[in-house]
């Protein structure tokens, strides 16, 4: 070993902050990203058959085309939309679940990348954060909304509540597939593989989003974003039974409450 002191000393002094590079990109007009309602070109094949006349809006998220389904019209013009986020391997249900029956606004459901009618990426590469950006594409179209997430969708609901705290007016987290994720830290070494499929759910989504790491302090960071930048007193509602470590870390913290989904939604609908 031949190290001397000057560079090493400089490194000890050096505490790099976030590095922001000029990414040398010509941005496009965000208004061009959300595409209006269409009925053709559906790419997934396992989503439930929708009744005639039920609109699906197609959203472009980078190279992925996302299906955003309107499940129910509003009964009260003053209430914002509710967006359903499905669990891992699921898709938007044909009918809204009973828990959201009393929601007075529109009810929408988003098929995540590689799920339902949304397109299947080549070669995987899924992260929960990409799904958060899927939801952000829906927010760009719908505006302010409340989210209701099942399983994996519950985790994504937490992320987007923290990521867009002024636009997401409450996140209700309930049980469902993919709620646990890959644990609190790196697990046994592995190279994740899957067989390609032309139909949803994409096997790469199932493989990769089963093992995505969800450290409790990372989840708490998103809760803190929600609490600090949202004007809701309790923006996150834990309404399921299962408490994986990332969710258990939220339980009892300021900004979080545990109550049935019906009650949480009734409250958020009045805000």
């Amino acid at each position, binding site marked *: *070993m*031949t*190290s*001397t002191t*000057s*560079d*090493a000393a*400089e*490194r*000890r002094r*050096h*505490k*790099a902050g*976030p*590095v922001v*590079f000029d*990414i*040398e*990109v*010509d*941005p*496009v007009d*965000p208004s061009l*990203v959300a595409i209006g309602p269409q009925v053709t070109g559906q790419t997934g094949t396992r989503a439930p058959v929708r009744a005639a006349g039920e609109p699906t809006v197609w959203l*472009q*998220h*980078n*190279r992925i085309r996302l299906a955003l389904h309107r499940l129910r019209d509003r009964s009260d013009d003053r209430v914002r939309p509710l967006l359903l986020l499905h669990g891992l391997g699921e898709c938007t249900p044909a009918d809204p679940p009973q828990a959201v029956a009393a929601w007075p606004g529109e009810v929408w459901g988003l098929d995540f*990348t590689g799920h339902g009618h949304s397109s299947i*990426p*080549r*070669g*995987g*590469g*899924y992260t929960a*954060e*990409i799904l*958060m*950006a899927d939801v*952000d594409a829906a927010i*760009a179209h719908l505006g302010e909304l409340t989210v209701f997430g099942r399983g994996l969708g519950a985790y994504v609901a937490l992320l987007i509540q*923290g*990521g867009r705290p002024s636009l997401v007016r409450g996140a209700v987290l309930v049980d469902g597939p993919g709620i646990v994720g890959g644990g609190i830290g790196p697990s046994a*070494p592995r*190279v*994740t*593989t899957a067989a390609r499929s032309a139909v949803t759910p994409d096997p*790469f989504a199932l493989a*990769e989003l089963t*093992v995505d*790491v*969800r*450290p409790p302090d*990372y989840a708490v*960071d*998103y809760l*803190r*974003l929600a609490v*600090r*930048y949202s004007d809701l007193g309790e923006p996150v509602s834990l309404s399921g039974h299962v408490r994986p470590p990332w969710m258990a870390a939220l339980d009892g913290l300021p900004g979080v409450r545990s109550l049935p989904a019906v009650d949480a939604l009734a409250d958020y609908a009045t805000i």
Partner: protein
Amino acid sequence: MDVSTPRRPDRCSRVDSAGVGLAVWEWGDAGDPPILFAHGGFDFAGTYDGFAPLIADAGWRVVCWDHRGHGDSDHADLYGWEADQRDAVAVMDWIGPDPIPVLGHSKGGGLLLNVADALPHRVSHLINIDGLPSRRSWPDLSERDRTSLRADAVSDWLDHRRTTAGASRKPGTIDELARRRQRMNPRLDLDWLRYLVPIGAYESEDGWRWKIDPSMRMGGVGPWQPEWSMMRLPGLGMPVLGILGLAVEVMGWGTLPEDVVPNLPERARFVPLEGVGHFVHIEQPELVAEMVLDFLP
């Protein structure tokens, strides 16, 4: 130019990784024993044009792929660590079933470290060039400051994702692209960076653009922590050579020898280099080649 006699690869092939086409480059005789190289983030195989010929001329078939979204590989729909690992194994499978030496710089070093840990039967020797992240470069922040930082990072990233569909990189002259790159590679000679432009960029009517996918950007969001990479090191059973450049620079991790030494496996060599930056093999190609060739069987 600070890299002696750069040389373009002798061959280029296309390897499919679950639908993503990877450009795979080779220097040296096709019949020589293979060694797999992995480049760093925002680089491409051509950044080994100075270093790889030194290894190839010593009797090795050097194979290096452009990571998905980089260089001449396909722009993928999604990017992630799991996907990059899978791509690495797709290239290894294309080379053959026998264990081979692997060498990675920066992100490529971390990537191959993970692959060696996951598939030890595929890796005979591991060479890591300034690819051992440590927590040292992460700022110590109060909870409030950390929340602010996270808020900016997440909202910036979400804003970025809203603009990626149809985005393209800024055009410029060869000199302009080289100077932009020098902001990330400040210790590298401008002539070397100018050399890289026609390889890593493409020319259109309004100028040159880097080929890297415009949807990619430095510093995404996610739960990853630098110590997750270092924790893979102690358990490795194959011979390991770690080379660390100690001069501080923007793309480096600021890792110190004392961060690495306690984690070295039994059969490891470790060489911290004073006065050398993150791009160790570009600043000191002959020195690094000498160390690598001495380490290889």
